[in-house]
């Protein structure tokens, strides 16, 4: 997914005046609703009753897994629903979910899932393989406007069906052999397919409920409302007050209900992150969705154990248009990349705890930690630039950094402009354009340097490295290397072991970094506050919480 804005730009500090008032209001609301004692905070009462108070950013747009797209929705939906496969809460490796086991054919294209006999919907209905066939059929209805329909495209004929080339859904590669057995046929081996199954666009939905409140491809029907929503996950929806809270309680029909420790989760939408931080300090939240950038250093200096900074599956980078004469020489591209002082940039400008990136793929993507010999080396950069024919930046052609109009992007561009001026003595101008114009210019190749960001859709280096295939839709640099394409398209999928696959990716990554059609700048991070009583909530690169594993326990001191 293309990232429009910088998650941690400093735009958040505007409404501090009204936020005092809002905080007060929210506190009263929270106090009033939970009915706890006057002096007892949510956190301490929640720790006794097993209620987790979760700061959830904004009000969700929808709880329909085939319509929702955002992070706040993701949190709630992953508490309510479950796919065939779960992710390990630490390593994110696939674990059995609704499917207790699965077989993959040798050629890697046919998956046969064995569903649990004990799988039930939250109203007690039996949860069967046919539910998936119907849900995925619904996910592929163009009228539904599912932005994540492409997540299903690895499935055979799914794309053709979605685009109307095929009208008969039985030709799509998903079949319920019996109530307990689901067979999925893919177009080609897709090693990350199991991961996709834990994405909410592939979650099952309850057919009878949806049809009770409208047709299958109708948006915004009442089926997701409290009292209506029937789900298959560890929790069920019991209360939804818009802009106030969403409450979910443990689902007694869940197949693993005995191992779910939390009784209740209260999702509180707080858009103002300054307010959210205050509520956390007042003991009204167990977990916040983020933290204002200027507070991070304060928490860091205090060595606060409640602060959590974890890498996130996204990379902020600059594209270099290799079709422009000055960037045809890889030495020039490398020189630019080597003269960016990433550490200073993230410490002083972005200030969101971001991690300097020296490779395209974020570290820790499915156990993949890219090696890179890229480092901040202004001297070496100057030498490379001189070798390429621009000693001391002399004669360097007019070059512009293109970015979409946004305060965060502007700051980074201004800082880089000066770094390149200082370290390489090249004059680079800035050019900002409105989002759509910017996308146009980028796709048309009408730029020299442009800023970019990529957030992974699934945890696999493939998701980052296949961006730069020849002529790829998100490549846009004009860079094309047949050997690279061969590694990503042919060699990597042919490797059977995970380790061998990662080695191929490392090879491709090294190739990419030597040629340097892009300049990696930083890895996105999730910054949040987590109360010490929240256990089994591990930081991971997807910022995905496994609510069924979380329990609350006050540390004995």
């Amino acid at each position, binding site marked *: 997914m293309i990232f429009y804005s910088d998650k941690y730009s400093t735009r958040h500090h505007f409404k501090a005046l009204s936020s005092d008032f809002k905080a007060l209001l929210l506190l009263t609301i929270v106090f009033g609703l939970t009915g706890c004692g006057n002096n007892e905070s949510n956190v301490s009462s929640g720790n006794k009753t097993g209620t987790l108070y979760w700061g959830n950013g904004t009000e969700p747009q929808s709880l329909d897994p085939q319509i929702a797209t955002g992070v706040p929705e993701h949190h709630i939906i992953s508490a309510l629903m479950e796919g065939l496969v779960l992710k390990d809460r630490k390593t994110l490796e696939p674990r059995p979910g609704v499917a207790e086991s699965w077989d993959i054919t040798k050629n890697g294209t046919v998956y046969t899932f064995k569903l649990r006999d004990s799988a039930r919907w939250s109203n007690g209905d039996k949860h069967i393989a046919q539910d998936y066939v119907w849900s995925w059929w619904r996910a592929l209805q163009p009228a539904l406007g599912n932005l994540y329909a492409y997540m299903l495209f690895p499935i055979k004929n799914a794309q053709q069906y979605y685009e109307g080339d095929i009208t008969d859904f039985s030709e799509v590669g998903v079949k319920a052999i019996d109530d307990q057995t689901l067979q999925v046929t893919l177009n080609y081996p897709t090693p990350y397919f199991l991961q996709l199954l834990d994405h909410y666009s592939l979650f099952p939905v309850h057919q009878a409920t949806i049809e009770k409140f409208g047709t299958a491809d109708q948006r915004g029907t009442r089926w997701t409302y409290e009292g209506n929503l029937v789900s298959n996950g560890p929790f069920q929806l019991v209360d939804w007050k818009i802009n106030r809270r969403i409450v979910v309680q443990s689902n007694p029909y869940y197949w693993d209900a005995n191992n779910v420790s939390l009784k209740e989760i209260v999702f509180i939408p707080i858009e103002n992150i300054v307010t959210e931080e205050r509520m956390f300090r007042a003991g009204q939240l167990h977990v916040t969705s983020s933290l204002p950038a200027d507070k991070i250093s304060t928490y860091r200096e205090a060595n606060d154990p409640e602060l959590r900074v974890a890498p996130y599956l996204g990379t902020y980078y600059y594209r270099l248009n290799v079709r422009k004469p000055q960037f045809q020489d890889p030495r020039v591209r490398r020189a630019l990349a080597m003269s960016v*002082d990433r550490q200073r940039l993230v410490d*002083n400008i972005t200030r969101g705890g971001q991690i300097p990136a020296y490779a395209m793929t974020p570290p820790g993507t499915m156990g993949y930690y890219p090696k890179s010999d890229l480092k901040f080396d202004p001297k070496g950069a100057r030498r490379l630039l001189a070798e390429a024919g621009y000693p001391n930046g002399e004669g360097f052609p007019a070059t512009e950094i293109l970015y979409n109009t946004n305060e965060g992007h502007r*700051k980074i561009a*201004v800082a880089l402009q000066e770094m390149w001026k200082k370290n390489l003595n090249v004059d680079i101008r*800035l050019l900002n354009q409105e989002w759509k114009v910017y996308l146009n210019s980028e796709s048309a190749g009408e730029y020299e340097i442009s800023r970019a960001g990529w957030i992974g859709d699934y945890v696999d280096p493939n998701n980052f490295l296949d961006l730069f295939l020849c002529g790829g839709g998100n490549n846009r640099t004009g860079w094309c290397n047949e050997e690279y394409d061969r590694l990503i398209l042919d060699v990597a999928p042919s490797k059977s072991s995970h380790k061998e696959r990662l080695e191929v990716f490392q090879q491709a990554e090294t190739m990419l970094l030597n040629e340097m059609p892009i300049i990696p700048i930083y890895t996105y991070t999730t910054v949040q506050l987590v109360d010490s009583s929240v256990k089994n909530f591990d930081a991971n690169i997807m910022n995905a919480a496994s609510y069924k594993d979380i329990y609350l326990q006050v540390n004995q001191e």
Partner: protein
Amino acid sequence: MADAIEGHGSSLWKDAWIKLSKNRLALFGLAVLIMLILTSLLTPLIAPYGYETQNLDMGATAPSLLHWLGTDIFGRDMLTRIMYGGRVSLMVGFIATAVALVIGILWGAIAGFFGGRLDAVMMRIVDVLYALPFMIFIILLMVVFGRNILLLFLAIGAVEWLTMARIVRSQVMALRNQEFVEAANSLGLSQWTIIRRHIIPNTLGPVIVYTTLTIPSVMLLEAFLSFLGLGIQPPESSWGLLINYGVETMEEFPWLLIFPGIALSLTLFALNFLGDGLRDALDPRTSKD
């Protein structure tokens, strides 16, 4: 009146200066403006730092002895940035307004004085240009001619003259039937001389007031265009842009907003005082003593 006709016009300016020099506020305004313009001209020589020299490790710091007005988040000296910003802002303000003044006064005076079909045609042209969304007009100009700071001045001026033309025209229409114009006519003065010598000086009051209003709005317009990527680009800056950025961080680093704000307001005050004084001084209808 008799003096004005006899005295070759120069007496008007002489009188005006005498009247102006008695107006303390106006003189203060004039002094401030001259100071600002001088500072702007000399900035490359007297600025304490480079306007693009960053010090990321230092970041935003409050005013201190080293940096009198503090530094911005890139560690750039604010005093320097305001001085350089003033060059752009004052230049935009004066040049764009001058362009608007020249076109507007001539257009309005000609249309108003001759009236009839010529007036109708000229004012319809103004109406058409008015109806054109001015952003699109400026964007078109910039797209066709490229991003160039001089062009930015012209583009803004080319948009701002419309109101000026209307004001002048209405003034002229009121004036052209007055006795002193008839007298000038009967004395055989050419129409151009009448416009130049008698009509335009009589319209100066509202024109000056409107000019003092145009200069600040032009400065803000420049900031807006620059923000959209059509005006000047970082690391260069202007007061409007500095204020724009200052607003973003006004809670954390208030000095980034306050000082450019002071610079802009000071200019506007000075312009207003001077404009008021000039209006009084230049109005030929006020008595000489």
